[in-house]
């Protein structure tokens, strides 16, 4: 298969089942909401080293509970317990600390984790609970409880419980380019398109990862190491997967609330990336043995 002269490898991306949550951060201005969101999304590129994958969602929230500017952040982790720990730590250390911020659940799900209900103890007994009916919040669901925690600029509002549901982590594709500059531009085009898809995040810096990894290492203490088969500088030293003419490889990893959202993000991303300087687009998998979600590139791109 070829798109705009770019060869699409007949392979698939192997993704994993993860748990997902989504929080809505508001503040007095978009800039401060974004500061809090960026802080919360820091050091959250990969579960391998960060314990979770977290990033700002590309689509801006249409409405917020307090009518202030808001930013949506999605967090993925391997278990509900990990989600709860990460949310408590990140909201407590990164959002509550940001001036004027408030933090709301933004995922309607059957399973809900106590987050504000734990953070409330920061109020040292002066925290105040407010439980509002769905008619007040206008969301059509049941009542929601919020905690007002006294802080030095007034109050930090945090929702008592946050929804968690099964999601998909590790959807990916690889951009094999003739040289770095053109490959990076292709990646940027892909990310711009993917950010318009609802319910997905690309957790690496700017959505792009250059240090793709393989399972295992020659060192016993390391369970993941550089994807040597895709490193141009090792073309002559290891069994390389790089075709002739490829001088740089970048990977885009995508996590989503549903397999459909991940597939759609991959589809629009690959289509946007196909352009000058890109030789081939491939995807990472582990022979189908590890992840339960398989995204076949040809199948995705044949849709619509």
């Amino acid at each position, binding site marked *: 298969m070829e798109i705009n002269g770019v060869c699409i490898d007949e392979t698939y991306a192997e993704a994993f089942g993860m748990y997902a949550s989504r929080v809505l951060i*508001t503040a007095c201005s978009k800039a401060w909401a974004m500061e809090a969101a960026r802080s919360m999304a820091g050091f959250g590129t990969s579960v391998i080293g960060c314990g979770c994958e977290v990033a700002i969602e590309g689509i801006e929230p249409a409405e917020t*509970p*307090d*009518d*202030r500017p808001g930013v949506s952040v999605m967090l993925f982790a391997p278990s509900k317990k990990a989600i709860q720990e990460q949310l408590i730590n990140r909201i407590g250390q990164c959002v509550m600390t940001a001036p004027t911020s*408030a933090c709301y659940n933004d995922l309607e799900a059957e399973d809900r984790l106590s987050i504000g209900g734990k953070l409330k103890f920061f109020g040292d007994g*002066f925290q*105040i*609970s*407010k*439980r*509002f*009916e769905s*008619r*007040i*919040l*206008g969301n059509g669901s049941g*009542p929601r409880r*919020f905690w*007002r925690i006294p802080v030095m600029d*007034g*109050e930090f*509002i945090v929702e008592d419980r946050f929804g968690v549901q099964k999601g998909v982590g590790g959807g990916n594709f690889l951009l094999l380019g003739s040289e770095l500059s053109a490959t990076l531009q292709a990646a940027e085009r892909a990310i711009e398109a993917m950010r318009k898809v609802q319910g997905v995040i690309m957790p690496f810096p700017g959505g792009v990862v250059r240090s793709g990894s393989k399972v295992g290492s020659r060192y016993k203490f390391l369970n993941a190491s550089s994807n040597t088969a895709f490193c141009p500088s090792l073309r002559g030293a290891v069994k390389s997967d790089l075709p002739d003419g490829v001088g740089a490889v970048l990977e885009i990893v995508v996590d989503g609330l549903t397999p459909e959202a991940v597939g759609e993000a991959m589809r629009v991303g690959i289509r946007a990336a196909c352009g000058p300087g890109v030789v081939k687009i491939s995807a990472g998998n582990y022979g189908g043995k590890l992840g339960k979600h398989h995204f076949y590139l040809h199948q995705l791109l044949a849709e619509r």
Partner: protein
Amino acid sequence: MPPVVLHMQEIPTNIPLEAESISPDLFVERSQAEIEAMPVALGNETHRLGDFFKVKGERSDEIVIEGCAGRVKWIGSGMTRGRIVVHGDVGMHAGSYMRGGEILIDGNADDFLGVEMQGGLIRVKGNARHRVGAAYRGSKYGMQGGIILVDGNVGHEVGAYMRRGLIAIKGNAEDFLGAMMTNGTICLFGQAGIRTGGGMQKGTIVCLRPVELLPTFVYDCSYSPVFLRMVFKGLKQLGMEPPVPANGLVRRYHGDLADVGKGEILIAA
């Protein structure tokens, strides 16, 4: 299903009519004849609902009451679903113990409106009298959920012993607003009487006009609490837009220090 329309025929004079049977939960599975045969009490006598109301419609969880029902007590008491629309006044105890659904009253409501309710919405376009959303004498808690909106004025002890939920009043309130509150939110657009929040343990009373406070309330600060934005936004969506901006300053006082002292009165600055 079209609503069941109850048209008041015979107006009780000195003795009020006790009509707990006027509830969507009870009407939804009954035919017109069964609705007419439902019991109502006039003093120590039991009558049929059809003796006082002309009934039109059946098997619906929406009820429309026409005529003067100002002496009819317990309308919608304990209801969990549906809607009651009253084109006129209602008597005492309307919506008491209510757990869901809506009661919309075009006229005025008598005492004990929404007392000890746990959910649902009551909207009064006129005035409501004493102990709206409060507790019955001897009960530990008043309203424990739901929303009461009053476009007019309210009487004494509104929200007394309230534990959860929201009461919003466009007009004025008489004395002891939110007395002995243990939680919940009261939002008063008009003028409050004396001893507002007397004995309150927790909870929030928002007064958009200056109010004379008990000496057991202490000033904290002037600020713009974010949760008020949520309340004001919700009230606006319910057609009761506050006359001050949601991001305006309020003066926060906490009390009542004669009790636990974790309640708050927020007064628009």
